[in-house]
């Protein structure tokens, strides 16, 4: 298990071949881009899946939405999967009203559910 953290950075945990990023504070654009870079690099070093836990995130705007989509696209290319877990109802409503359905993104209700997705996959 490794952790990386810096000023305003989101720490990424590695549990076996799953990367977990729990966003707990409000992100500036810069820290969102830093997270994107960290996750992409760590995934390239070998990971089956990425879980981004956002239950602590109060707003997702089109910028953060794009960052999430790009992380998912990058992990897909590296033969992994990205699951965004724990989106709040108010955030989901707002994204939909904006017209941001994030169709390509895999979602789960919680971190546990997201981990179960990968466990189920491993069992196959």
């Amino acid at each position: 298990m490794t952790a990386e953290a810096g000023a305003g950075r989101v720490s990424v945990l590695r549990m076996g071949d799953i990367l977990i990023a729990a966003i707990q504070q409000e992100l500036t654009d810069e820290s969102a881009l830093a997270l994107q870079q960290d996750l992409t690099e760590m995934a390239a070093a070998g990971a089956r899946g990425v879980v981004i836990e956002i239950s602590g995130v109060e707003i997702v705007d089109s910028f953060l939405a794009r960052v999430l989509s790009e992380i998912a696209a990058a992990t897909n290319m590296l033969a992994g999967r990205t699951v965004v877990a724990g989106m709040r109802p108010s955030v989901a409503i707002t994204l939909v009203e904006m017209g941001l359905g994030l169709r390509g993104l895999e979602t789960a209700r919680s971190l546990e559910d997201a981990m179960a997705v990968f466990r189920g996959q491993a069992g196959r």
Partner: protein
Amino acid sequence: MTSVGSDGSGAATVAQVLETRGEQVAQQWADLPLFRNVYTTGRDAAVAAAHRLVRVLAEVARHGRLDDTSAPDFERVRPHLAQTVTARTRSGATHQQITAEVAELKRPLLEIVARETGGADGAVAAVELMGTLRVVVVEIALSEGAELIDRQRAQLLEISNPVIKLWDGVVAVPLIGTLDSARTQVVMEALLQAIVDQNAGMAILDITGVPMVDTVVAQYLLKTAMAVRLMGAECVISGIRPQIAQTIVQLGIDLGDITTRATLADALKWALGKAGVSVVVGEG
């Protein structure tokens, strides 16, 4: 407030007829739709009800209040008339039908008045009296209708949380009536919150009770399903009747990858199947 026929003599004549031939009038009225359709348990009850109305009309005429819808005597029959109106409304009669049925009471009365008196005064007064009765009934019908609407509105507001838990992890919201944007917002928020509160993985939007699906409603269904998915839960829309399916197609709305089922029961079965609960269907 005087008019032709209510100069006293006509009114007195009608009062007289209603008092002396009351039983005869009541017998004839009991066979007319207004009473026959309400007092279905027996003719005696219909006759008694008709007689009650006859006596009140006699009093109104006796007091020379032929054209006065607020004549105090009417107060005594108002509750009965209200019951009659409600009963007819429940069995599907429109206000127009009800007032037409009230108007039918006029003819037998006029015939009896003509036979008994011969002069025109009594007939004119009888017409006026029955016209007044009709207005009273219209007033009652309108106030009953308003009360009904108020009651329904209050009920709707009471349902602040319309979401029901169907099973562990399965929540459902039965949508009923016409959806306006304020209501749809409330329902969407309640459903999404229920997913969190109940830790539900499945959400069912049941539109069996929605009479019509237009672009706005379809758009709302799509948005709700998308928001449910963003939260990591699954959404099923149930109760899509054939006409509604057709409208959705005709409107060119793409429900895309949203799961749909014909009935709420089918949707629940689907949800339980996904959750790994097997459903044993009984025979029949």
